[in-house]
């Protein structure tokens, strides 16, 4: 669906990403993990087309990202950024409704109201529809943005892609679980899901494959057991991790640093 082929991103003379190659496949959840500053968000922004690459290429369905019309691209990939602040006050449902912009010239425009309602239902924010966005908590806003991305992909010809940058950051445990299960369901429907996560246990639960970035390089890309291996994690985070019963991972915060 979306491929990065040896992409390098530079800013201020520093390489934020260095020769990263990976392919996001339809029907999988690919979790991107790594320490702060490893280039996770930069990778997501490069795959979304926000971030120009200095070397390498991003391709969507085999075609160079830059060759796509933005509107065409918007009908098959949606992005949930870390934080979205509004220019002017709007209600939650109005924010979600903006997702239907790429569809207004298509035959799918008639689905707008249904798509918005369904997306808000799926993201668990239907009850917030009439609330002013700026009065919502951080977690509620994040879920409204997820609903917006879902509404944007409603009607997309397969395969569609959903890119999320730390979507669980402001969520409580219950809502984290809801969101992660939603991502699994989307993948089961054939959506290609790429999600940047901090919590390795969330990655272990949700991901089919995990990409670990360290200092802008792809340190490992593989199955959960392969990528979230305690020795590798200790190298990446400078902390010992131990596996706990049920497949979880616990960092030992009391251990000395690197």
């Amino acid at each position, binding site marked *: 669906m979306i491929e990065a082929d040896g992409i390098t991103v530079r800013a201020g003379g520093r390489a934020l990403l260095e020769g990263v190659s990976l392919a996001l496949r339809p029907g999988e959840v690919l979790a991107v993990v790594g320490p702060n500053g490893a280039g996770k968000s930069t990778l997501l922004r490069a795959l979304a*087309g926000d971030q120009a690459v200095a070397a390498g290429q991003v391709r969507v369905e085999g075609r160079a990202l830059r060759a796509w019309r933005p509107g065409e691209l918007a009908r098959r990939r949606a992005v949930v950024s870390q934080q979205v602040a509004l*220019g002017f006050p*709007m209600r939650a449902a109005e924010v979600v409704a903006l997702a239907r912009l790429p569809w207004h010239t298509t035959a799918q425009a008639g689905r707008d109201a249904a798509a918005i309602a369904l997306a808000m239902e799926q993201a668990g924010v*239907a009850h917030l529809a009439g609330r002013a966005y700026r009065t919502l908590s951080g977690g509620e806003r994040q879920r409204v943005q997820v609903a917006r991305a879902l509404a944007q992909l409603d009607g997309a010809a397969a395969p569609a892609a959903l890119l999320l940058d730390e979507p669980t950051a402001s969520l409580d445990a219950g809502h984290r679980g809801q969101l992660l299960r939603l991502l699994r369901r989307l993948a089961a429907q054939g959506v290609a899901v790429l999600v940047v996560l901090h919590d390795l246990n969330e990655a272990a639960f949700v991901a089919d494959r995990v990409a670990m970035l360290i200092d802008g390089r792809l340190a490992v890309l593989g199955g959960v057991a392969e990528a979230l291996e305690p020795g590798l994690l200790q190298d990446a985070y400078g902390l010992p991790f131990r596996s706990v019963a049920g497949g979880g991972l616990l960092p030992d915060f009391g251990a000395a640093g690197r």
Partner: protein
Amino acid sequence: MSVALTAVLPRARARVAVLPLGVALLAAAMLAGVLLGPAHVSAAGLWASILDALGIAPLPAEHVRDAAVLGVVRAPRVLMAALVGAGLGAAGAAMQGLFRNPLADPGLIGVSGGAALAAVGAIVLSGSLFGAAAGVMGLWLLPAAAFVGGLGATALMARLGTVQGVAGVATLLLAGVAVNALAGALTGLLVFMADDRQVRDITFWTLGSLAGSRWAQLPVVAVLVGLPTLALCALARPLNALLLGEAEAFHLGIRVEVVKRVALVLAAVAVASGVAFTGLIGFVGLVVPHLVRLGFGADHRLVMPGAALLGGTLLVLADLLARSLAAPAELPVGVVTALLGAPFFLWLLRSRAGAA
């Protein structure tokens, strides 16, 4: 669909209501604008004048004075106010949407500062260069200079604000501040060189007035203000996407850099063409979009046409006040819009600070 969703979502009723409401308000203001003033005109006089102008019925003798007041003075003035106000309102709404800044107004993009510099330049230089052509000067030369100056300043600001092909909002804003400061300094230099009569002309130009409106100017204003205003209204969807931010707008399929450039050019043309004939008129572009948002929300499909219609309405009414309050003298219309707009601006500032 849940009840809450239908209640807030399509706002279909608002969209249906906002255009007729705006048109009705503008029509009422324009009617008041032609009928009221130091010389009172009766509705019968207006009706007889319209019939006469359309060649349907000859003008009765008792309405000859009404027809003269209407035809020569009031009608072009009210039409000019409606057009210029509409351009200021729409340009203000578009700039606030583009910069995602509620305190943005058309002055921010350098257009007013540049227009003022060129107009002042024309006034000062006309003393020596165009002294013989004072009539042409007032009617066309000054507006042409102001128009070119306004567009030139915006072009300079856009050029300075674009780094590596990307016109970042913060960079654009700072470039606008710099261009305005430069234009202000050069204007000051010209004022310093001007004689007393010119200083008086300059002062009145920078405070704005619709008294110089002529029929001959209206077709030009109708095209150069009217078309960009309509085109800005057509940018409502991209401006809506920009409410979420530039990256999100791109994710929604908007060509952000193209939209920014087009909106800047349209706003600059709409404002420069208006102020070229009337002089600077502040606060309409700032305040009017907020009034529309207070009533109908942030959706630009409502805000853009609403701001155009309400901008026209408010400038027609402000001009009516300007020529009525101190009759037979006239207040500069910019003084009236600022007197009405500044308190609202302060209230807005304080209520936002309270909400944040």
